């Protein structure tokens, strides 16, 4: 294939971005025994070309940990086929040239969106990021209500937690076609809002900070709930959504958005 068998991965396994060095241009024949290849690689400092590719992140729980609300079968398909498919598609696209190398996934999404004129890599990159975010937005034993500062912020921006829940569910059910529903912290308005987006779009693209997301593509719920979207959304709100992760994200967001600032009107 072109990869030297002794290629050392300098990055730890948990890292998302992996870089490998293609030595195939050096080796005159693939018939060279492994030992000689190793020596050739170690002796040769200059790599002819560097390829970057991203690794697939696992959800932070076992694939059957969300049963009975999201079946293992769904996780196997959704993560193992769809999410992995987007990632492998992205890596294949990136193999063509190194123009888009060196970005974190979040940066790559924004760059490939190209302010509304997306590159072909956008769909794959955005969906990889969206799904990473989605798995982390859920947890076994999720649901219930947030506490402390996040609850206070929700009550301030929506009136009550029940009101927020209704708004979120309504957005999910009124989404036309494939898309996502988000609880997002708006950077400029300095408040939480519920936002729905189509296909692979996410609030990252207008620089807002997502806190929670729900995948409303049909593949996310069809195996478990068929056409009954309402049941799926209810189950997500009551049993899956990870308010712990949401609190973490809010805490991090407050490094970028000063929520404590009073809203002083400009004279």
């Amino acid at each position, binding site marked *: 294939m072109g990869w030297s068998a002794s290629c050392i991965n300098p990055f730890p396994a948990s890292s998302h971005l992996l870089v490998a060095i293609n030595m195939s241009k050096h080796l005159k024949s693939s018939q060279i025994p492994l030992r000689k290849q190793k020596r050739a690689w170690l002796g040769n400092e200059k790599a002819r070309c560097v390829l970057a590719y991203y690794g697939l992140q696992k959800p932070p729980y076992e694939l059957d940990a969300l049963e009975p609300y999201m079946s293992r079968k769904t996780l196997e*398909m959704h993560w193992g*086929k*769809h999410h992995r*498919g987007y990632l492998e598609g992205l890596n294949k696209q990136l193999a063509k040239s190194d123009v888009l190398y060196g970005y974190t996934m979040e940066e790559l999404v924004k760059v490939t969106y190209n302010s509304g004129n997306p590159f072909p890599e956008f*769909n794959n990159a955005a969906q990889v990021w969206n799904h990473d975010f989605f798995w982390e937005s859920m947890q076994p034993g999720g649901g219930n209500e947030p506490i402390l500062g996040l609850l206070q912020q929700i009550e301030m921006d929506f009136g009550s937690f029940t009101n927020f829940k209704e708004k979120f569910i309504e957005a999910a059910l009124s989404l*036309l*076609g*494939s*898309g996502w529903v988000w609880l997002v912290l708006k950077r400029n308005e300095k408040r939480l809002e519920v936002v729905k987006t*189509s*296909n*692979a779009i996410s609030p990252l693209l207008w620089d807002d900070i997502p806190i929670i997301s729900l995948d409303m*593509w*049909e*593949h996310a719920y*069809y*195996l478990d709930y*068929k*056409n009954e979207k309402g049941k799926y959304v209810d189950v997500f709100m009551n049993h899956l959504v990870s308010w712990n992760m949401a609190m973490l994200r809010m805490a991090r967001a407050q490094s970028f958005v000063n929520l404590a600032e009073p809203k002083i009107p400009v004279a």
Partner: protein
Amino acid sequence: MALRTLATRRRLGLGLGFQSIRGLQTFSLPDLPYDYGALEPAISGEIMQLHHQKHHQTYITNYNKALEQLDAAMAKGDAPTVVKLQSAIKFNGGGHVNHSIFWKNLAPVREGGGEPPKGSLGSTIDTNFGSLEALIQKMNAEGAAVQGSGWVWLGVDKELKKLVIETTANQDPLVTKGSLVPLLGIDVWEHAYYLQYKNVRPDYLKNIWKVMNWKYASEVYEKECP
């Protein structure tokens, strides 16, 4: 006298299950011209039943609701509401239009499903695309490339009298892409194939041609291009 009026009204609607009572339009679910299991193994009976009884019915229900609300808003002259309802009408009405065509596009094998087109459509396909296989390949490629939900169509341009392959997003009907008449449409929403083919949309696209009703497509084509 009232009965005769009702009977006349029933003939309207272009086969879309349209009924007009007291001036208010309502649409109803058209029956499938075959059993749910008749398209197996290309499309499973479970999918056909869900697709017809749940998805299509939901589009119709929501379409009727939207039309009712539109009626009320227009009567009041409530322009913002009229405009706001447009997306619901396009989505649900489009869903009804598209699926009504879709059911007619499919036929069980024993009723001619999968049989290649003869007559003028067959020869036009050979002229425009080279061969039927080439057309199928192109349509499948376009269908597989649709991001998110949508449809892939074989249509005929009313003015140029040419065959075209087009894709539409979500439930947009083919007419939104120009003065095109749909001959064949393939639903590439995930609900159309997920239970059977999971994420392998290309397999669904390959197999659906085995139950494609070219007779219907030829009829429509010959009407447009006599």
